């Protein structure tokens, strides 16, 4: 048996053409037109961050404190009078867009950011709104945005999954349905990573062998190649070669993935920039993944619904924002320095916003806010986005979208557009119909495009 002398030797000898891989045949793999962005990172503040405490200042709430607001709407629970934001807002950047102190570090980059202040979902409940924001439909099982993107464009790196969803400490509400592939092939669904862990074998399933070191694996793959080559001699099925290649690809994936997830390879100043908490670490990992060609990374804030602050929003929002403000600002800074911001789309938001009125529990206030799907904020920065822009608005109090109401379908159409995909043409036939992410809706938000 001739064993390759080095790993490099082995890899060059197994000399893979990528063409025959099964998945390549399944995805469309080509943008419809020149993309502005090649990859997406989505900060998902699950639970629903309050827009009136972050990116949508409402001075009228202070004026009407304790009084009913005229734009009051029914939400999941009962809410009472106007509840002014306990956080200070101030103008940032050349654009002078107002942002609250919760995201002061992020706000330093406001001139790269377009804030959509007129987002709307369909109902004031987490589950349907999570499905809508991630998969474009409140109720039915539909593929997620990341699944559509990898279906439409493939992965930029054959050795890594194309769509990765990271959430520290467990799953968000609705678990893996948030990154499902539904009727698209299973390979397009998001790979879940519990980012509370630090070692790569805890981060990605089966990425490291508990029973064979690299040398043994190489010996085994050499044997497998020999057996499979002999088997293939009398057969003409292309799936045989595809499967042979998948093993060699897997071997390389072990090395590449281990490297991508190892933040200790970053210089100290870089780790300091992002911060040493779990959110700093997962954001830094995300940057390493994007750099290596991963199509979409979703960063969830944590298990369950951390931003769902029905009580004591002042303390809770302050604590949560403190965990991600620095990592987000670091990422924007870092991407810019590397020249990656121009073709990386950064998205920030939750499944909905929160009421400008105070939530009542048994008639009493615990100084929190209820869910609000009538109006909330999402922002985007980077690839193809006109920075320093505010699009749309909510009413005087921030209860409902007023100017340019924007549906989640519009948001999705815009994201696909920036990625070089026409949302009306990216379709998949299932159960007799050509489905798309935006159903029969969606308009690209041209005013926020650069």
């Amino acid at each position, binding site marked *: 048996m001739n064993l390759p002398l080095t790993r490099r030797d082995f890899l060059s000898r197994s000399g893979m053409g990528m063409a025959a891989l099964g998945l390549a045949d399944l995805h469309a793999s080509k943008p419809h037109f020149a993309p502005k962005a090649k990859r997406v990172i989505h900060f998902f503040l699950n639970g629903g961050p309050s827009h009136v405490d972050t990116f949508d200042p409402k001075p009228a709430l202070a004026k009407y404190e304790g009084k009913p607001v005229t734009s009051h709407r029914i939400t*999941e629970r009962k809410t009472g009078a106007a509840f002014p934001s306990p956080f200070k807002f101030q103008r940032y950047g050349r654009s002078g867009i107002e942002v609250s102190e919760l995201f002061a570090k992020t706000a330093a980059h406001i001139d790269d950011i377009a804030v959509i202040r007129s987002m709307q979902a369909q109902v004031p409940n987490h589950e349907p709104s999570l499905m809508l924001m991630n998969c474009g439909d409140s109720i039915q099982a539909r593929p997620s945005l990341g699944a559509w993107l990898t279906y439409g464009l493939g992965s930029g790196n054959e050795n890594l*999954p194309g769509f990765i969803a990271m959430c520290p400490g467990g799953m968000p509400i609705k678990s893996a349905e948030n990154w499902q592939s539904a009727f698209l092939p299973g390979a397009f669904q998001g*790979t879940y990573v519990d980012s509370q*862990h630090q070692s790569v074998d805890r981060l990605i399933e089966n990425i*490291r062998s*508990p029973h064979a070191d690299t040398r043994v694996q190489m010996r085994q793959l050499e*044997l497998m190649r020999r057996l499979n080559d002999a088997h293939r001699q009398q057969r003409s099925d292309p*799936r045989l070669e595809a499967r042979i290649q*998948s093993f060699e690809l897997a071997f390389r994936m072990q090395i590449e993935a281990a490297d991508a997830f190892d933040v200790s390879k970053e210089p100290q100043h870089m780790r300091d920039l992002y911060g040493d908490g779990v959110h700093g670490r997962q954001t830094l990992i995300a940057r390493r993944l994007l750099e290596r060609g991963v199509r979409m990374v979703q960063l969830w804030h944590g298990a369950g619904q951390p931003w769902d602050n029905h009580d004591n929003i002042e303390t809770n929002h302050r604590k949560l924002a403190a965990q991600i403000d620095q990592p987000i600002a670091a990422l924007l800074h870092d991407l810019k320095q590397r020249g990656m911001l121009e073709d990386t789309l950064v998205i920030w938001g939750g499944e909905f916003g929160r009421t400008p009125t105070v939530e009542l529990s048994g008639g009493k206030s615990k100084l929190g806010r209820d869910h609000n799907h009538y109006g909330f904020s999402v922002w985007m920065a980077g690839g193809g986005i006109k920075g320093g822009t505010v699009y749309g608005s909510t009413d005087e109090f921030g209860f409902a979208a007023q100017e340019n109401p924007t549906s989640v379908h519009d948001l999705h159409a815009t994201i696909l557009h920036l990625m070089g995909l026409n949302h009306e043409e990216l379709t998949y036939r299932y*159960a007799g119909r050509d489905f798309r992410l935006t159903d029969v809706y969606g308009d690209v938000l041209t005013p926020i495009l650069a």
Partner: protein
Amino acid sequence: MLCRIVQISALFISTSLLAAEHWSFQPLKAGKGNSIDEFIQRGLAEKGMKSSPRADAHTLIRRATFDLTGLPPSDESDSSDMSDKHFAHLVDSLLASPHYGEQWARHWLDVARYSDTKGYVYAREEKQWVHATPYRDWVVRALNEDMPYDRFLLLQIAGDQIVPPNSPDLAAMGFLTLGRRFLGVTHDIIDDRIDVVTRGTLGLTVACARCHDHKFDPIPTRDYYALYGVFQSSAEAVVPCAVVRNEELSALVKKNRELMTKRRGEQMARTRARSADYIAAQKDLEKYPEEVFGQLLDDKDLNPFIVHRFTAWLEKHPGNELTEDTLKQLGSPAFVPDEHIANIEMYFPTGVTTELWKSQADVDRFIIKKSAAPAHATVLVDRPLPSMPRVFIRGNPLTKGDEVPRQFLSAFGKQTPFTKGSGRLELAQAITDPRNPLTARVMVNRLWQHHFGRGLVSTPSDFGKQGGAPSHPELLDWLAQRFIDSGWSIKAMHRLIMSSKTYQQSSQSSDLSDPDNRLLSRMNPHRLSFEEARDAWISAAGRLNRLVGGRPEALFASSNTRRTLYALVDRENVPAVMRTFDFANPDLSIPQRTETTVPQQALFGMNHPFVVQQAKSLLNRPEVKSADASTRIHRIYARLFQRAPMSDELNFSLGFVHEDQAPIIATADHSKSWQYGYGEWDESTGKVKHFKPLPHFTGIAWQGDEAWPNEKLGWAQLTASGGHPGNDRKHAVVRRWVAGTDGSYTINSTLIHEPQVGDGIRAFVSHSRLGKLRSATVLGVDAVMNLDTIAFKAGDTLDFIVDIGSGLNSDQFLWSPKITSSLTAVTGAGGDTPNDTWEAEKDFSAQPKSQLTAWEQLVQVLMLSNEFMFVD
């Protein structure tokens, strides 16, 4: 509700014309030909092609056995004589095997969007279905008994009206009731049922007509709502489908019933008392949102659902008055029907709904967990007052159009309204009417598809205009007619197909003029599905538990050596490995799985402990273990491939196992300095009582068993970077470091408890001689636990101990200490040099658990080879 069809600017063709023209609506035609081979040969001859020669006996046995049972043939299968007679005998014996039903049940379960769980539901409700296991087992049994297909469908759609109470056949109705819950939204639950029935049995995409007339097929919206009415007039009921009685269960059911009766009564009284308010609310309807909009309600609120019931009643009875008497009647807007909570949760304030679901969950859990409980089915039963459906214009329930009677689809000719109850039985009868050409065509095509890898129609659940045209229309009709004439015998169809030359031909052909092999000039090789591969691995290891039926088990529980059919399918969380291997999405009716080849599949084969376990078990079989090297290889080949190795295969296998393996380059093996165990913290001694090692290593974690949590040690787990304490204070997890040499050491560590919920964890650092050195109780915060220059003698231990706060809730933690020797003088005997560092995390994963032996390497490779994974 939203309208969900992609607009396609197609020419607008009157759909009634299509009904006459489209092939699949035509009656079955008697074509020229009287055998499968005749039709296939004719197609080939037209292109000047020939079929391939008959496959050899070994291939035929393997093909037939995997096809019919999903399992590999036994290595003793006699392949000396494979005459037609002998092969027919083999097919008969395979069809008689109980494993036949298991294999073909899985194909049907894909269509039936089978799941053991409901998917996402609120915590008040039991997540697992009570009736999934009985349904799955019923399908297996029905197929094994060769139940006529028309009865198979009748029972699944209207079993409640055909068989007596407590009949095991009631389980069949899981077909309708195992779908997702859609957060309780009726329109979507009904839509799912219309979809599974029409695509599953008729190959028609009727759900496309929810918002407007079908774009391509003769299915107007009226037809969709005609079926909608059938399901709207049926309510879910959980009933026993066995005659066993269980007193404990009866008591729970009685308690649940009493609570329901009480709460219904209160609710009806509440609504009657406020009927004036409900009527007044009609002026302000926009304040009362639809059922998709989840509002938390208390008993003082007007219930939006009831507001809308008033609206409907008032519209239907113009000029009538809602008297106290009227309000008490069945069908009045104040009346709460006497049904399972799943049907009526919208009637109550949120707190009451939660209470009723919790009470129901007590019943459900008893049925699911207790083996003494009789099997239960969730059936549909007709409501006393069937409702006349109205078209929802553009699918929106708020904009109601014309009434339509409950009746069958218009494409099948003149419609007569259903007259018996909901009409579900009449619907089932219309589907299984032998004059209905679609039902038989669709089913024989499914059977063909699973034998040949592709159907004669390539879109098995879409026989409409947008679906594929049949490659051999006359053959399809001939098969469909034979199917009906055989008394809808599925086994007869297997015999017919498998006895053909077409089925028995070789898959190896060099003629590539028909690359997709639509004309079947050769057999299509079959790649094992995930279930088949796992079953074949366990089977090769000789560990397969062949028990048929019963409760599901976690896929990778170490005790789970059952067929993959019995692995728990949790539709909210399908194991990643199953999705990676193209398992059918249990949310949707899947007529054909996609087949992908991705590196994650290879990673599973190479690195997951499962395949290696099977390789080791195979090597441990007495007849393998005791044999000399060459015989051993023969026996391994026999078990895996049911053939002898060829001489070169034998030689290089021998070479492989005998080759000197280069020694692994030794790095300081600190993994021996750590032990992973559990015990009980004893505050009085400052030490752990009863330290025992955690018995099971998964490759990434030490814990009680392969599954986690597990029955042995619950949640107790230690990983490279942290872990989780056991379920009580007696099961603290202990990461133990053993000093190799005398000296003083410095310890740096930070304990991190991230969750903001629960009551936190307790942590201790304890020295075997000095006792407690540090302790902390943390909830959602970090605790720095550093120690400077602590003296150790060789063999002393330092324990890092974590147990739960007062209760078990969100107790996972991160804690990976780093220990540095601060002594410089002495070199210890253990090989560790001074100034050394032990890092819990790094040392944990620096080494594989144990390196495979050359034999294990060989068997693993053979198990992952293409020869193993493909059936010629």
